[in-house]
C-alpha cells in the first residue's frame, strides 16, 4: 500500500503527531464508522461514543501503524473489535444495555436525525420508518460474522478480500457468510419486497 492513498498519507502524519490530520481522517470516515456501529448495536448515542473510541484507538495505535493494507480495512477491524467488546460488556452487565436501548426522541418522535429522504406524505413516512426498523432489526439479529459481512459489503462497499481481512477468515468463508446472511434476510423480510 503506497502513499498514493490519501488515507495512508493522513495516517502517516497522525503517526508523526499531527492532530489536524487525525481530524481530517475523522471527518472522512466518521459517518461510515458511526453507522457501522449503529447498525450493529442499535443505539445512536452509544454508536457515537463507541465511534469516538475507535478513532482514539486509531490515534493510540498510530505509532505502530504500517501501511500494509488499505486504511479502511484497518479502521473497520478496529471498529469490529470495538463492537465485539461492547457486546461482551452488555452480556456481563445487561441492566446497562436496557438504558442504552432508549433512543433519544425529538418532539415529533422521529428519533436520531436521518438524512432527508424527500418523503412528504406522513403516512408514507411512517411506513418507510417501519420498513427501515424491520431492516435494521433483521440485520441486528444475524450472527455477528454474517452481520459484519453484510454491513461492510452492502453499506461500505468493501470487497470480499477486505471483508475477509476484517473478519480474519478466508475469502471463500466470507462468500459463504454473505450467502447465508442473504438467505436469512430473504426469509425475515419476506413480504416487504
Amino acid at each position: 500500500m503506497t502513499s498514493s492513498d490519501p488515507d495512508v498519507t493522513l495516517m502517516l502524519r497522525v503517526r508523526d503527531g499531527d492532530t489536524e490530520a487525525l481530524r481530517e481522517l475523522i471527518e472522512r470516515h466518521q459517518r461510515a464508522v458511526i453507522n457501522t456501529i449503529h447498525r450493529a448495536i442499535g443505539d445512536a448515542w452509544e454508536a457515537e461514543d463507541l465511534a469516538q473510541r475507535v478513532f482514539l484507538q486509531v490515534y493510540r495505535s498510530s505509532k505502530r501503524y504500517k501501511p500494509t493494507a488499505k486504511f479502511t480495512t484497518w479502521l473497520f477491524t478496529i471498529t469490529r473489535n470495538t463492537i465485539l467488546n461492547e457486546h461482551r460488556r452488555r452480556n456481563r452487565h445487561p441492566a446497562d444495555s436496557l438504558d442504552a436501548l432508549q433512543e433519544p426522541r425529538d418532539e415529533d418522535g422521529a428519533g436520531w436525525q436521518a438524512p432527508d429522504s424527500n418523503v412528504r406524505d406522513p403516512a408514507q413516512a411512517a411506513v418507510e420508518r417501519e420498513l427501515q426498523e424491520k431492516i435494521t432489526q433483521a440485520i441486528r439479529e444475524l450472527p455477528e460474522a454474517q452481520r459484519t459481512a453484510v454491513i461492510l459489503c452492502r453499506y461500505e462497499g468493501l470487497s470480499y478480500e477486505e471483508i475477509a481481512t476484517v473478519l480474519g477468515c478466508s475469502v471463500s468463508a466470507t462468500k459463504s457468510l454473505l450467502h447465508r446472511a442473504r438467505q436469512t434476510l430473504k426469509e425475515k423480510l419476506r413480504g416487504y419486497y
Partner: protein
Amino acid sequence: MSCQRVRNQFDARLDGRLTASEQAAFDAHLIGCADCRSEWGAYSGVWQMLGRDEGIEPSIGFAERTLRRLNEPPVVVHGWAWGRPLRWAALAASIIALGVGAWSRHERMLDQKRAEVYARMRQADYLEDYDVIANLDKLKEDHSL
C-alpha cells in the same frame, strides 16, 4: 445454463463479479425461466431493500469532541482475555483450599481418636496379661480398638 448453476451465481451477480459473458448467460436464463426469475427477484429484492436504510448523520462537532478526548486514559476492557482464566483459577484455588481444609480436619480427628485409644490402652491392665495378649479376645471386647 442449468437452474442450479444460475442460482449458484446469485451472489456473484449481486456483487458484480460475473464476467460479461457470464452475465449475458445469466440474464438469458432468467428470461426463459419463471422459477429462477422469481427466486432472483426475491434474492436481489431484499438486497436492494437494505439500501433504503440510509443511516444516520454524525452529530455536529463529532470530530471536535473526539479530539478533545485524545488525552483521556484508554478504556480498560476489564482484561477480557484474562477474565475467564482468572475465574477458573479462583475456582480451582477454592476447591483446593476446601480440600486441604477437609483433609486437615480429618487428620485432626484421626489424631484425636488415636490419642483416646492410646489413653484407654494405657489404663487397660489386661494388656499386661500374657494370656490376654495371646488370644486378643479381651481386646476385641473393647470396640475402640
